[in-house]
């Protein structure tokens, strides 16, 4: 798995931290810190996935098998480390009762598991309206005109179906 990206480097440190703590029987407070870091890294991976999917879907980026592989590998890597943390979490919970961040960490864990299991690479949307558009100068001027003269202005109160 790659360590080139900033997230990859963080993941590597996260994994090494787990090993070190595991070797010395990981102290409880250090473990909570490990959970905090794990949640933060998961959110960074999820954000990257979301941003990449949106760009491919909207036509701003072409799909790349290399990037697809890299993003899913980040999830798998995180999940592998988190799996060990989860085992340790259960041990601590048995010992000390409820632990801060355990709910948030488990949500990340479940989300990662589901993301990996349901993985479908992003694809350009068939809905052209969803494609991002770089307007020409002429089109931009036309749009300014529409907005300024009220040509396309909503003039009624829309009603929801209730």
């Amino acid at each position, binding site marked *: 798995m790659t360590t080139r990206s900033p997230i990859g480097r963080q993941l590597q440190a996260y994994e090494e931290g787990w090993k070190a703590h595991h070797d010395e029987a990981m102290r409880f407070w250090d473990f909570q810190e490990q959970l905090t870091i794990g949640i933060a890294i998961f959110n960074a991976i999820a954000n990257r996935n979301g941003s990449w999917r949106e760009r491919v879907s*909207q036509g701003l980026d072409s799909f790349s098998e290399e990037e697809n592989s890299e993003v899913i590998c980040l999830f798998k890597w995180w999940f592998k480390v988190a799996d060990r943390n989860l085992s340790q979490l259960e041990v601590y919970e048995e010992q000390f009762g409820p632990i801060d961040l355990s709910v948030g960490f488990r949500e990340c864990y479940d989300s990662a598991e589901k993301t990996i299991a349901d993985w479908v690479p992003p694809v*350009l949307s*068939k809905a052209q309206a969803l494609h991002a558009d770089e307007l020409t100068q002429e089109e931009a001027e036309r749009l300014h005109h529409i907005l300024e003269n009220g040509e*396309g202005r909503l003039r009624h109160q829309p009603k929801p179906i209730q």
Partner: protein
Amino acid sequence: MSSPTVPQGEPNAGTIPTTEKRSEISCTPLVPPVSFSENLLSEVANFDCGAESYETEVADWIRAPRGKGGALDDMANNKTQVWLYRTAANELVGYGSLGQTAWRWDNPKKGPWVPIYVIPFLGVQTPFKKQPPGPKDQRYSHRILDDLIYKAVTHSNKHRLLGLCVHPENESAIAFYKRFNFAEYTLNKQGYLRMVLDLHGSTGSAPFPPQTS
């Protein structure tokens, strides 16, 4: 436009009587829409809103399994929201969708991407087009589009524009959107007509967009 093509709010002129109730449908009112999801895919397997290419693409989008660039992919990849609309008699009338994209229109190629709302597709099944009989603003297509506009103006992001794409030959759809004051804009690279609605409108003295409670 918003789908591409589509729109489909109204059928081609003359295909369906405009003032008579179709015997095979109940003509009961719409009930609140339900969010579309993968487990509802089988319910739209026979979705049909016409045979024209700009009508079949509307049906194809909602019926597409993951990986084909349809509704389910857009829900997963860019947070598009999709709803199924049914009557009180549980007939599937159609679907509507609301998504977001970005246009770079202020100082093109250099300026920031400006987020806008879009209606990727809106589809009404053939038997329900121009139904129920009576005022146009009570038709299923009208009620669905009005509901989508309501969802846009009350959305938390407060984008100014609501856009969509219509096949230029789909004259009935263009007329349908114009009744809501969508302005005909320009053709996109694929030859679809972009239409836009400025949500920062005004209804006169009434506050608008409506206050959310």
